[in-house]
């Protein structure tokens, strides 16, 4: 064996290492591939050896080859071997290789789970770090599920290096295993306030990433982020938070109002451009969200626009780019403020940098008005001609169409101009956007009736010159416009000047080379044209013309009948037969025109793009139901219907560079002139074309000539858009003149000089009337269209799975899987558990209220059923045995049914956001991290501060929400309680109506709005009890069971510095007992203390939490502990210590768990609970106070209360159920209790007794 190792290391000396490999590759430039393949063979040999060093070296080389594009997945197993080496050097090589080439389908990943787990818990922080880094690249759903719990533990690691990595990787875990989000979220939230800035930054990073996709679930974190924003100095963190706020404000305009001021301050104060830019961005987002609600924030807008102008004018191209980018966001809501910078933006259009030009183009969209549209488009057309690359040119093309067609062609005053622009655009070679131009042509021709005559004429010319467009056939996306041209000519053929000529053009043999779907349109529209021609010719006495047309059809159509395209073939043969039949009739002198044109009668109206989707599903139609037996899998390879505008495969056209000499050019020019002169349409359609030429006296011919040089595709006979610009200007001038005249007349009539101001001012938008009476036909929508528009989300988005309500309390089933063989967690709760979970108002917010209602109905139905069953059962049971508690609870449950059913619709959302509401409405800006507890209290619970207002008719017997100083992780628990409370409130209100007439006999005087106060408000309560105190420091603590883990309790300790000195290096230590142990980080001994993660300046208090592991929870426990700390004055520092005794009561193992009465009844029925009871004498307090105290101090919840009798429920962290029935009569309180663990019950009852003996 030893020999082998020696041999291995000797071999190794002769192996190539990475550097040798790289050098070798560089030396074999000619036969690189061959050299590498020999290297790979060597590597394969090396991998076969036992020596791990050799293997690692080989894997290292493979990683390099992977970068060069070689597939190395065959070595996956060897990579795993190297990963599991005990040496860090090799481990790192292995993990790097894995992170470069492993992915979800790598099957050996399954083998790594245990190795990774081992590395994660390695005492060496860099082993852990390397494993986390690697895992972040190749985590799979399986790995995420299996390791989630381990990583979560690492989030509380002592080393910040590990903590920050663990926090960051959680995002990947969430993506792969969404179920882990809710259990891990409280801890993630904690990390937002981690003392280490790196960890904090990581947590911010992860939450921002989560919130970006599903912002509404993170609104409740806004106060916390706000605090971070005002306190953090790390620009990275600030940028992330500010970006996050940008995502949150659209959901909550009030948040925006709160943000404006601090953001504006930052804008003024910061020197970091990156931060300034993000601030401006978020202020813009805020302004957008406010734009409807708040009348003006013009100062803020001005500030933003100003700052952006500075950016755009900056010589740094990066700032210029970003300035334009942000400007486009303002444009959407405040176009006016951007429009004033038109000059600057138009200037950017000429920038040499394409990125900047593209941004400027985006902005143009909002710059146009009726007045300047033509001018801007003209400028863009010049750019189109100049543009060298097709991408930028295509971008220009789409922008031109975008700005012209925006908001229903709002800015177009002259559609002739627009059509000619579109026609000009068809000269673009190799564009991918032929279909875009085509659809615009169709849209305009269909929707603007007045333009049809003109459009048809243009399209006819296009068809006539189709050979120019389709020069290099098929590769050219532009031939799509022929689709539109053919259709328009066919559909509106009544406007055609010379239909026979067009028909002839449509049936040329060359058409057969067009794409199939275009040919199909040609054939169909030829038929339409044919019908029109027949109709025109029918009146003539000479029938030969009509017969000639038929003959032409018959001659030409067979070409299409042979088409390989089914659609073309089918249409052609149908029409051919039809024409043949018509010809027969014609020969018999039968008048057919009427009947033929009837084939194409009727107007086609435009249909709104989403109309189809919005047709409401008729009642009783289930679209998901199978009509027939579902077909087998193989059949489902469906033929997808081909869209009419099929996307052409991106075919790159060969640039057409035809060298033309001067002579040839001159000849062509001459020919064109001739052609134009001969074209009657040309002159007719543009009577002022002469004028255009005159205005450019130096040039012999129209301005098109220059363009022709580069693009030899001038379609002769087509008018240029420029003419229309001139025409339009003239028209406008005329109009203005006329108006002036009128005004003058008016003035004369009125004899007042006031009119002067009008005509001297610039032409305003409204003054420009469109050239035609533009009748834009609106798009049709089906009747009863549903207004929903939110169907654009991609169903495959992995983030959809992370749309999880985080405020909902954790259920048992949601715990992260833990690998250990511990006696399976909490014993599964009885059957009601599931039901209770359903019944609690926990449905995620996203469900529509309608769904909720439906569900409620179902539940009510269920409940009714169960009620009836229960009644039956009850009778039976009463005969059998007398079970006081069970019976009573049952009765309570049954009685409550009526009320519950009436009020079963809680307003679940309001309670959820109430924290946030409060913060948004009046909470002061928390400026410091100190007093976190009190702030939290204020945030969480407005009730005690406004007892008269809110408690007036709320149920004050539910004071759980006063247990506010509770640790933050249990915040959601509170919310649930609040929800419950709200339900109760409603109930209570009902009760008020029934009872308040006779309940005010007690003489309480507080009358509110006509309602009589029934029960006095509760005194504030706190569960924090004094732990220890000396002259320096005071410790108060609260003990709570851990929702997550059945064997953990969390002790929250608030340390308050009472002295004038600085307290630091606090260490918290506890002497463990057999049953209870303080959880210490891995690697520390059983007697080591825990460092408190903060220092305390004088007068400041802060809270730390410590986790204890407990085994048995049936008995109370006491643990001795010590806090050591250093008191630091200006001149001296002393060591001090403070002893304390931690008291784990049985109560602290209980967790407030709501329970529904029917579930509660079933539980009692089940019969495996032991009962016990206790009597309290001389309790002199209202019943609701009594209940509140039990709820608050002992973590119970009220299941049902009827007069002076109430049932209550709680659950231990290990899943024991504790049920109470509390009755009172004249200062005596009797509590009957049931629990599956008698010792625990006894202790809890003792503790309750003690609580009441103290007061």
């Amino acid at each position: 064996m030893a020999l082998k190792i020696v041999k291995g290391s000797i071999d190794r000396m002769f192996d190539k290492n990475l550097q040798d490999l790289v050098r070798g590759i560089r030396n074999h430039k000619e036969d690189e591939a061959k050299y590498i393949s020999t290297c790979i063979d060597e590597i394969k040999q090396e991998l076969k050896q036992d020596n791990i060093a050799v293997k690692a070296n080989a894997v290292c080389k493979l990683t390099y080859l992977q970068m060069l594009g070689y597939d190395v997945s065959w070595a996956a197993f060897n990579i795993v071997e190297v990963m599991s080496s005990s040496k860090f050097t090799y481990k790192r090589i292995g993990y790097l290789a894995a992170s470069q080439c492993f992915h979800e389908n790598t099957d050996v990943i399954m083998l790594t789970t245990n190795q990774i787990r081992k590395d994660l818990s390695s005492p060496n922080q860099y082993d852990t770090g390397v494993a986390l880094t690697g895992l972040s690249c190749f985590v799979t759903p399986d790995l995420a599920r299996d390791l989630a719990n381990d990583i979560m533990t690492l989030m509380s690691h002592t080393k910040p290096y590990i903590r920050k990595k663990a926090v960051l990787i959680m995002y990947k875990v969430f993506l792969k295993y969404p179920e882990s989000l809710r259990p891990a979220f409280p801890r993630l939230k904690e990390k937002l306030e981690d003392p280490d800035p790196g960890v904090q930054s990581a947590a911010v990073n992860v939450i921002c990433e989560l919130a970006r996709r599903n912002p509404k679930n993170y609104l409740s974190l806004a106060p916390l982020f706000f605090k971070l924003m005002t306190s953090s100095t790390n620009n990275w963190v600030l940028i992330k938070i500010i970006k996050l706020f940008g995502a949150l404000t659209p959901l909550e305009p009030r948040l925006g109002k709160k943000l404006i001021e601090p953001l504006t301050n930052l804008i003024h104060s910061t020197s970091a451009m990156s931060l300034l830019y993000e601030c401006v961005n978020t202020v813009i987002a805020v302004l957008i969200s406010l734009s409807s609600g708040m009348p003006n924030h013009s100062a803020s807008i001005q500030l933003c626009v100003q700052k952006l102008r500075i950016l755009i004018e900056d010589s740094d191209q990066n700032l210029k780019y970003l300035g334009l980018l942000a400007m486009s966001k303002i444009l959407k809501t405040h176009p006016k403020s951007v429009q004033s910078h038109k000059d600057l933006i138009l200037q950017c259009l000429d920038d040499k940098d394409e990125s900047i030009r593209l941004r400027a183009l985006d902005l143009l969209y909002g710059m146009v008005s009726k007045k300047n549209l033509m001018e801007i488009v003209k400028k863009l057309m010049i750019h189109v001609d100049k543009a060298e690359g097709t991408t930028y040119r295509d971008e220009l093309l789409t922008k031109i169409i975008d700005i012209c067609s925006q908001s229903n062609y709002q800015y177009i005053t002259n559609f002739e101009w627009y059509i000619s622009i579109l026609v000009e655009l068809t000269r673009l070679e190799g564009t991918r956007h032929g279909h875009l131009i085509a659809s615009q042509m169709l849209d305009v021709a269909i929707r603007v009736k007045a333009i049809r005559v003109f459009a048809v004429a243009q399209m006819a010319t296009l068809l006539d010159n189709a050979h120019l467009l389709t020069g290099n056939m098929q590769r050219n996306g532009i031939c799509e416009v022929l689709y539109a041209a053919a259709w328009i000519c066919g559909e509106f053929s009544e406007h055609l000047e010379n239909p026979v000529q067009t028909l002839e053009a449509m049936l040329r043999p060359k058409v057969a080379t067009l794409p199939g779907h275009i040919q199909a349109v040609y054939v169909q529209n030829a038929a339409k044209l044919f019908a029109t021609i027949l109709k025109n010719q029918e009146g003539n006495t000479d029938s030969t013309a009509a017969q000639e047309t038929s003959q032409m059809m018959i001659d030409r159509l067979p070409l299409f009948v042979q088409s390989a395209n089914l659609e073309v073939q089918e249409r052609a043969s149908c029409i051919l037969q039809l024409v043949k039949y018509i010809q027969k009739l014609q020969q018999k002198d039968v008048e057919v025109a009427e009947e033929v044109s009837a084939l194409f009668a009727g107007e086609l109206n435009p249909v709104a793009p989403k109309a189809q989707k919005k047709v409401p599903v008729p009642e009783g139609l289930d679209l998901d139901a199978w009509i027939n037996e579902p077909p087998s899998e193989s059949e489902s390879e469906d033929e997808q219907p081909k869209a009419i505008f099929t996307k052409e495969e991106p075919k790159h056209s060969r640039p057409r560079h035809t060298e033309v000499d001067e002579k040839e050019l001159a000849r062509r020019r001459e020919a064109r002139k001739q052609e134009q002169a001969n074209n009657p349409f040309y002159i007719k359609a543009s009577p002022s074309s002469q004028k255009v030429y005159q205005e450019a006296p130096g040039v012999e011919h129209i301005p098109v000539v220059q363009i022709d040089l580069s693009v030899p595709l001038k379609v002769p006979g087509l008018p240029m858009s420029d003419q229309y610009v001139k025409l339009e200007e003239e028209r406008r001038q005329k109009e203005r003149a006329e108006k002036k005249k009128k005004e003058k007349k008016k003035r004369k009539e009125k004899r007042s000089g006031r009119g002067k101001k009008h005509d001297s001012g610039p032409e305003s938008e409204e003054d420009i009337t469109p050239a035609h009476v533009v009748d834009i036909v609106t798009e049709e929508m089906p009747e009863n269209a549903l207004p929903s528009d939110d169907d654009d989300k991609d169903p495959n988005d992995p983030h959809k799975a992370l749309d999880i309500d985080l405020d909902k309390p954790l259920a048992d089933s949601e715990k992260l899987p833990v690998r250990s063989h511990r006696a399976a967690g909490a014993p599964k709760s009885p059957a009601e558990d599931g039901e209770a979970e359903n019944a609690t108002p926990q449905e995620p917010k996203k469900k529509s209220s309608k769904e909720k209602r439906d569900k409620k109905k179902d539940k009510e139905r269920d409940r009714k059923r169960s009620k009836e069953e229960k009644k039956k059962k009850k009778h039976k049971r009463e005969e059998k045995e007398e079970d006081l508690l069970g019976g009573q609870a049952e009765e309570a449950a049954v009685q409550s049914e009526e009320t519950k059913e009436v009020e079963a619709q809680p307003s679940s959302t309001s309670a959820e956001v109430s924290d946030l509401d409060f913060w948004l409405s009046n909470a002061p800006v928390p400026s410091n991290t100190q007093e976190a507890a009190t702030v939290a209290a204020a945030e969480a619970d407005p009730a005690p501060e406004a007892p008269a207002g809110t408690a007036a008719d709320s149920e004050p017997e539910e004071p759980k929400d006063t247990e506010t100083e509770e640790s933050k992780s249990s915040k959601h628990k509170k919310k649930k309680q609040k929800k419950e409370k709200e339900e109760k409130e409603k109930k209570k209100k009902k009760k008020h109506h029934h009872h308040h007439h006779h309940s005010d006999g007690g003489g309480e005087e507080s009358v509110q709005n006509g309602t009589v106060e029934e029960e006095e408000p509760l005194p504030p309560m706190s569960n924090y009890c004094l732990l220890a105190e000396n002259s320096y420091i005071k410790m108060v603590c609260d003990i709570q069971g851990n929702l997550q883990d059945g064997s953990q309790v969390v002790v929250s300790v608030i340390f308050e510095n009472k002295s004038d000195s600085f307290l630091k290096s606090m260490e918290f230590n506890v002497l463990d007992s057999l049953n209870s142990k303080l959880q210490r980080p891995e690697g520390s001994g059983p007697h080591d203390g825990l460092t408190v993660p903060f220092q305390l300046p004088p007068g400041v208090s802060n809270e730390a939490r410590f986790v204890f592991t407990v085994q048995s929870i049936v008995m109370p426990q006491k643990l001795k502990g010590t806090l050591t700390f250093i008191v630091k004055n200006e001149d001296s520092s002393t060591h001090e210590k403070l002893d304390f005794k931690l008291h784990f009561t049985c109560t602290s193992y209980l967790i407030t768990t709501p329970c529904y009465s029917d579930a509660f009844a079933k539980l009692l029925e089940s019969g495996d609970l032991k009962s016990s009871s206790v009597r309290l004498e001389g309790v002199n307090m209202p019943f609701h106070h009594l209940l509140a105290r039990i709820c608050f101090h002992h973590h119970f919840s009220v299941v049902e209360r009827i007069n002076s009798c109430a049932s209550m429920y709680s659950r231990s962290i290990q899943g024991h159920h504790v049920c109470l029935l509390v009755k009172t009569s004249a200062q005596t309180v009797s509590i009957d209790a049931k629990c599956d663990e008698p010792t625990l019950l006894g202790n809890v009852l003792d503790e309750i007794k003690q609580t009441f003996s103290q007061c």
Partner: protein
Amino acid sequence: MIKAILIFNNHGKPRLSKFYEHYNEDTEQQIIRETFHLVSKRDENVCNFLEGGMLIGGSDYKLIYRHYATLYFVFCVDSSESELGILDLIQVFVETLDKCFENVCELDLIFHVDKVHNILAEMVMGGMVLETNMNEIITQVDAQNKMEKSEVIL
């Protein structure tokens, strides 16, 4: 999120590629080629942002790059990253390399791509920015190198 980090030289030879989303080797090479094609034809004094790489693109993504002597450093990021922030990060990355290699040049990257990976791993993890403080990054990298050395001696 950062989708990919690429370093290549003026001729488009990859010096480091780190994809935070899986692609097969061919696609990776294609992306590198295309990115090089996009980036290399840009002038020196234009902005450092670029939209519309076809492969890695999608409208939410941007290429943010810097050009140092013979090398291009390209980050492909989505809209949750701050553009200027990433530019700073590239600067930090290069400065860190400079510190670790002592006057870094292309040859260092050619022969020690594994070390570059290790440095990058301390800055960016799984596509998210882990650390931006250069000193912290160098401390961690040095500590790990020290460990490696001690293992060699053993």
